[in-house]
């Protein structure tokens, strides 16, 4: 399959402090890639560059024109009703039917006419996903979209993202620091370190994935090792 994203020799420095270092990366059409790394390793910077929010870069980045993003905080405009938020920025008059369809996809069509402030964290994140997907992106950028959710809600929204990905077939780049989340969702997991892709692993496990299988556990141990985390206290339930 053709590449959706092509990054060649990408570098980015903030005040002489190099954050991205001659980075190369391809993402195929429809591929789900997870990007792991410690805080400050440059993973969010990379995502912002792909989103087009940061262009003070060296090197070359090719991305689809149709791309959208969901962030750690839902970033909904509090003064627009939920459905208006979903279709914000689309050309033409706000299309309510389109918004409702997108909200229905994420399972909260009934909250279409409320103010965003009245939503729970999980609901707001769903709206944020609907807003990203209503644009039919070829590339969806997710910047720790589950980071602020409680464990129970997180699981549900993760499953939702997997489902929506199957449905839309867009390429996804998920930035996270949760190893299990990366392994549950992605086709390929990248580990970033000091502004480079330091490690890479293809996750060839059948979906939906079971985090108790030996393969999963092995992969997780490998990723944690790459990240420099040794977990001796937290064993896996066997």
């Amino acid at each position: 399959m053709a590449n959706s994203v092509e990054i060649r020799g990408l570098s980015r420095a903030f005040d002489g402090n190099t954050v991205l270092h001659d980075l190369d990366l391809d993402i195929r059409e429809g591929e789900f890639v997870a990007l792991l790394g410690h805080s400050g390793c440059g993973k969010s910077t990379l995502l912002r560059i792909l989103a087009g929010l940061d262009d003070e870069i060296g090197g070359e980045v090719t991305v689809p024109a149709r791309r959208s993003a969901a962030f750690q905080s839902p970033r909904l405009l509090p003064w627009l009703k939920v459905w208006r938020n979903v279709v914000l920025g689309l050309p033409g008059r706000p299309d309510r039917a389109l918004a409702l369809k997108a909200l229905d996809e994420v399972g909260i069509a009934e909250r279409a006419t409320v103010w965003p402030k009245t939503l729970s964290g999980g609901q707001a994140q769903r709206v944020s996903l609907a807003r990203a997907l209503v644009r039919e992106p070829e590339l969806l950028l997710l910047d720790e979209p589950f980071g602020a959710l409680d464990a129970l809600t997180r699981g549900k929204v993760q499953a939702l993202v997997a489902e929506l990905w199957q449905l839309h077939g867009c390429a996804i780049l998920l930035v996270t620091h949760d190893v299990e989340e990366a392994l549950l969702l992605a086709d390929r997991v990248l580990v970033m370190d000091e502004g480079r892709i330091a490690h890479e692993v293809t996750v060839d496990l059948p979906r939906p994935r079971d985090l108790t299988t030996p393969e999963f556990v092995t992969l997780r141990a490998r990723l944690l090792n790459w990240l420099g985390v040794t977990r001796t206290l937290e064993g896996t339930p066997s």
Partner: protein
Amino acid sequence: MTTKPLDAAMLPQQKEVVAAPSTRVTIRGTAKVDRRFTVPRSVRRAAGPVGLVLLWFLTSATGVLPESVLASPVDVLRQAVDLTKNGELPHAIAASGRRAAIGFLIGATVALTLSLVAGLFRLGEDVIDSSMGMFRAIPWVGLIPLFIVWFGIEETPKIALVALGVTYPLYFNIYGGIRSTDSQLVEAARMMGLGRFGLIKYVILPSALPGALVGLRYALSTAWLALVFAEQVNADAGLGYLMSNAQQYFRTDVIVLCLVVYALLGLACDFAVRILSRRLLTWRANFEGEA
């Protein structure tokens, strides 16, 4: 930072000395089972002002408070009726209201334009904001003599003073509102394909609105205040004229009446802005609680 570990090390030792045996406290409930009759809060709140007016009335009626110092509330009320009947009071209110309205509109237009230019453009900020900061340091009431030199003694200096008084609170609040726009929201909106115009319309202006409304409340109260000052100077109509006339004849009843009217007009404006805020800011879940 350096004292912290020291404190932490000291604390447990002190505690051991002071509270060696474990002490317990009993929390006694203060909820009363059988509540006696209590005066409703609204009545209690009204008691103060009503009592003061009553005191005013009584001291006036008994002659303790001479009329040359302060007219009795009955006289003030009578004046209100008389001056309304002969049309003097409505005429004065109309004249003052006209000045306040024109001055406010001019000031608001200037403030809105300046704050948008300063808020939206880096160059505008550099040029305008520092100048506004400089001008604000000048007490605007002190400009009355200069305005008389410039604009004469007719309507213009009065309107100009109101406009000036309105400009500052509106400018600083709208400018501040624009500048406090959440950059994360701007980023997300840009990501969703909003252009410069869309960003201003959907993100920047709405997020400046709460500040603008606060500015509006200040601006309206300043407008009436500026009017009181301006109308002391050679007015031939309006509440200030009525007041300075009354001053020449020691008519404290008319003076008090004018003050009350000023206060009521100010209150009415404030009330209007509060209603407006409630309408415009329904999206703020925490807005002023219930009712």
